């Protein structure tokens, strides 16, 4: 008999944000995330403390996954950032840091939270409207006929992942490869709804990064001894190679019902009859002039031997992830039964050859019309390879988002400071009718706007990890980094050489001021201008869609958290 335990009453916590523990946890979390941000960000070692695999990273997705926060307020925050990452896979740290800063700065104002929320919503709409308008001074349009902007986008992503341990030449090499791989997946002839192809990563750990390559078509890894040398593939009279794709296991094991049992008479071997069935399939394939058989699961060695003798190349254990691109590339339909299948399922290929790298051997399938490519990605160690793979996935996603919306934002903190100076300018020049509309006074509005701008600027400041100062200029509102110990120098243009995104240099006097200093009174801000000269090479660029989404998620999550009036915790 089980013991019946009385239910515990639920725990009611009112005004969670006024509690000290929340503040402490929030500032620790902010510190952790801030320290990860940017190309000079510090890395975190994620491990189980018992000698397990050590993941060295500064990726927000990995850090947030491993940080198992216990407080509900933090859970809301991390959950919404993780959701943002899973959608756009970039700007996770930006979102998280901005959200933490907003909560802290808004808390310090001590207004009714509903007023703060209203004003911050208005500020957010100002930002998004500005970013989407033609007049926006911190965005560039991406011209797909000129690869340079795409290179800048990808390069910025790779550089922001220091745990990949890439040198300059390696970054350049990978940048070209990633853009090339992406362009291979873009269809040449676009009909009404274009579908992007797929790029499959072939992991080669332990090699130099510069050994990475892109192949059109697919690489399937196989044990070396299974292939005849030289590879001879049967072709049809029209000189194509017919391929049959199986997603059912051909290992010759029995159909396994969950329950019940089969009783067979002694001397009858179910395995043998199953194998006979497989060999029949083999005969049919040979008769149908198939040149290549690919199986998601295992092929029985006897069947493999039979196929090999009949000059049919057999590749098994390719895995589920390869099935979709295989079927897309060859036009074949995966065969799900070995008992009956029609020749209409077969696909075709232009050529098949073998490649080998390091100690691995591959069958290279070359299609007639490529939309599928394989990126052989190399890096020296396990840790750095894993990081590089994630960087690649981010870059791929960013390119996909950019082809939908061909815009990019200036990176290196410039977008944040530029937006902040735009908001400062706007909030001074807002008409009284708009204050009425959101039901607040001008002072209230300006205080919240100032907190909002400081939060944005603090994200830009997070890029700096060694003691040093960050300036902004009055003309463009860009962000400038200065090493420590130089603040007393009279001529600041000697100190700064280029702004964070690299679009402006120190040739004209831009009237710099220290960002976020307590002493200087906020100068009367004019509307920040768009840089006149737009050099497109070697800029730091961020994904437009990802950053806009990040901004939105951060402000809305902060608003949600500010709005929390109580937590009811079920303690059972």
């Amino acid at each position, binding site marked *: 008999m089980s013991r019946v335990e009385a239910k515990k009453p639920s725990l009611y916590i009112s005004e969670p944000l006024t509690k000290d523990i929340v503040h402490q946890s929030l500032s620790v*979390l902010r510190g952790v995330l801030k320290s990860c941000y940017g190309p000079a960000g510090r890395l975190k070692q994620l491990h189980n403390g018992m000698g397990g695999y050590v993941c060295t990273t500064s990726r927000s997705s990995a850090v947030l996954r491993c940080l198992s926060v216990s407080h509900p307020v933090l859970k809301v925050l991390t959950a919404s950032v993780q959701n943002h990452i899973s959608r756009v896979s970039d700007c996770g740290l930006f979102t998280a840091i901005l959200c933490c800063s907003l909560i802290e700065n808004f808390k310090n104002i001590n207004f009714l939270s509903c007023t703060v929320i209203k004003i911050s919503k208005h500020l957010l709409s100002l930002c998004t409207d500005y970013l989407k308008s033609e007049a926006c001074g911190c965005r560039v349009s991406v011209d797909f006929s000129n690869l340079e902007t795409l290179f800048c986008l990808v390069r910025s992503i790779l550089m922001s992942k220091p745990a990949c341990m890439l040198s300059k030449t390696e970054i350049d090499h990978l940048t070209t490869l990633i853009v090339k791989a992406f362009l291979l997946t873009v269809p040449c002839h676009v009909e009404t709804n274009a579908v992007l192809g797929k790029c499959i990563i072939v992991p080669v750990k332990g090699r130099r990064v510069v050994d990475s390559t892109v192949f059109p078509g697919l690489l399937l890894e196989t044990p070396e001894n299974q292939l005849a040398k030289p590879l001879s593939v049967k072709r049809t009279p029209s000189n194509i190679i017919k391929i049959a794709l199986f997603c059912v296991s051909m290992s010759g094991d029995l159909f396994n019902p969950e329950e019940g049992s089969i009783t067979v008479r002694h001397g009858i071997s179910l395995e043998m009859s199953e194998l006979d069935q497989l060999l029949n399939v083999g005969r049919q394939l040979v008769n149908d002039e198939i040149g290549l058989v690919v199986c998601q699961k295992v092929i029985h060695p006897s069947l493999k031997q039979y196929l090999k003798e009949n000059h049919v190349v057999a590749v098994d254990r390719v895995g589920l992830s390869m099935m979709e691109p295989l079927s897309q590339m060859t036009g074949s339909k995966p065969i799900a039964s070995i008992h009956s299948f029609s020749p209409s399922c077969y696909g075709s290929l232009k050529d098949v050859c073998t490649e080998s790298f390091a100690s691995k051997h591959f069958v290279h399938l070359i299609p007639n019309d490529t939309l599928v490519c394989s990126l052989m990605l190399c890096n020296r160690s396990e840790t750095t390879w894993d990081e590089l793979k994630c960087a690649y996935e981010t870059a791929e996603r960013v390119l996909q988002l950019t082809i939908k919306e061909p815009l990019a934002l200036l990176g290196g903190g410039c977008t944040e400071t530029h937006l902040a100076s735009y908001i400062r300018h706007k909030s001074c020049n807002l008409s009284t009718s708009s204050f009425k509309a959101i039901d607040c006074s001008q002072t209230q509005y300006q205080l919240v706007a100032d907190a909002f701008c400081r939060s944005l600027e603090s994200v830009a400041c997070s890029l700096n990890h*060694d003691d040093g100062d960050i300036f902004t200029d009055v003309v463009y509102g860009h962000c400038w980094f200065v090493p420590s110990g130089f603040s007393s120098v009279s001529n600041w243009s000697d100190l*700064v050489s280029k702004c964070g995104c690299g679009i402006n240099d120190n040739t004209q006097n831009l009237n710099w001021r220290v960002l976020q200093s307590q002493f200087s009174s906020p100068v009367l801000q004019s509307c920040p201008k768009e840089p006149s000269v737009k050099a497109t090479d070697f800029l730091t660029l961020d994904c437009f869609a990802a950053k806009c989404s990040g901004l939105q998620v951060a402000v809305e999550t902060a608003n949600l958290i500010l709005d929390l009036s109580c937590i009811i915790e079920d303690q059972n």
Partner: protein
Amino acid sequence: MAFREVNARRHVGLQQLSALALAGRTLLGPMKSYKFVVDESTNQSVLTCSAVRLIESLDLSSAAGQLLNETIQAQNKEFKTGMSTLLFLVGAWSNAVLECLQQNVPVSVIVSVMSEGLNSCCEKVQCLQLSIPDVNKGLCSSSVRTNIFENKTSQIRSNSFLNPQVCFQKGISTSEEAAVPRNTHSYPEDSCNFSNSCLFSTLTGFGSIASLVKPVDGKSKSVISGSGVMTSSCNKKKLSHSRYFNTLAKSNFSSQLGNSEGCLSGQSAYPCECNDFGHLAMALSHGNQTSTKLLQNIVAYQQQRAECSGSSQFNITEIVTCCLLGLPESYSCVCSGFITLVSPEQATVIKYLQDKPLWILLMDGDLTEHYRHLGFNRSRNVRTILEHPSLQEGRSGDLWLSSVLDILKYFEVNLILVKGNVCEKLMERCITNNILVIGSVSHNVLRAFGEGCGAQPVSYLTQLDARYLGSGGQVELWRACDGRAMELGELVPVRIKVQGIPLLTAMLTTTVASKMQLIEDQFWTFVYRLHHALNEGKVFLGGGAVELLCLSHIQMLAEQSLKPASTNAEKEFHSPSWLAAASTEYKSVVLQALASGWNRYLSVVLCNTAKVASGFEAYTLIKCHLKKAADCGSPSAYILKEFRRGGMVQGSSDPFTDPGEGLNVYDNVTAKMEAWRRALDLVLLVLQTDAEIITGPRRNQLLNSYVSSEFMFL
């Protein structure tokens, strides 16, 4: 989740790296000291002299230790060489970076300047690359010349072994004078010495002077006693052919080879011609004569084959090793065919099979009743019913055994090579039926047999068909060069030969069990070095030349960075602008830190080879070379000239150096530069880490432990 910050000034991770790497200090260079790693809980110990084995046996529970292990394993997997260099540089650079942190150099500056510095060095040292054809030309001409010296040198070498405490160093000129006239006479002892030359080769990698058996030669002793007596290092003389310690012993070695080949290799002596890679193998082996000799035989054999068949000249997949305990190391040799160890019961089968042509079956799975290929799911719910039970029919196991034997007998199979395990009972039945079954055969061996005798591997015996069998093999008990059959222990070596099989087996023998692993590791290291050299088509000039050039290059960069003019010239678009400005301030400090890695490397190698008495002397020597290189104007030209002549320490104290002679010490290019890069990457990765995040169930443990104050819990 727990979260710990790593103190920025005293970076814990870097300290851990430096402490771990310190253990590998004596593994550097061609003269390694052995280490015993003792497990206190079990009292078991391991003898090791390679970085991989050392790191494998250390406790690496810390995150930095894990990363170090991962890095070393990756280098080992890719190159099989350069691991001790990697380990040492990790330690040296960790220390150097810690010093930079003490001087308040920002982390981002250290990272960017160090990685740029290394890149710059890697480009610079390309001028020390030599192409393989050039190398071969140089090596051959020198090897011809050295034959003249062979008598002299071997004589003197042997002398130094007579009295281990009597070694010559400074006052060497007298002994040289004394030795040269000896060379002109033909002493009868010379031939006597050479007959024992196989005993020489055992000395090479191992400082075990006690194992040397050598007739005492009174005359030569008297010659030696005339020279200056130095007691500093008797193990200095064990090194005959080193990158760092260039004596003429190399020529001595080639003479041994010529004399001892007949008895050392099971095969008849392969001619050691000028156009082969045997000399290259020697130059890459940095003084290990046993392995070199084996490698040279392999090269000679494979080149002969390549000329006939047009296959690649050095094929690493056609080499296997067989480790035999109980014979002196001088019995190591290379034989064509496949040699493996079998139980004495199986050896009886061999006596039956000898001189009979074999039918060979290859199996690429296990040879057991319940073996199924990978991915086969056994069904659990099949029941078999027996309708008419009879006593004659035994259990299913016996049924399987007899059916297997029926198949084997039907096809008249005598020899089965199995990739996986073999059923014990079947093994017994096969012995009684005079069928030899060998399990755990590697993939390469199966493939070679497939090529050699036309067999095709099968997974199940039911698949078997006559055309899958191979024919034409022969099996015999392996005999050592003196004709001795092995009755040494529980296992007996057998040799399987097939006409035209490309497979070569290197028999590695030793009487010391704990050294077996070590000998095998070293052998493979040298095989891979040659493999990489031939694949790349180029080698580095060895003997510390590369490191010295790096040092001088970095010094030049550091000097340049102090000059203000060069700051704006560089176009630094990748690093943030302020970094460029900050770099100039700290650049020279960081570059010095980078250089200190190679400086320590060179000095430790010099100390390990006992060529200099102290670290201080080593630093002075390096400094002297650097100064000369800088004065010369073109450091690379200076180094090329000096190292072709004799390496770091030439001229100072070495009596045997012939100035006109090539150096013949080379290194792998990519393996070396990758080892540097991996070492620096690891150090910089750990440097940039500021916190550990510990996941999983250890949270409560950490909360209660003494370090709980270091952690933050969210």
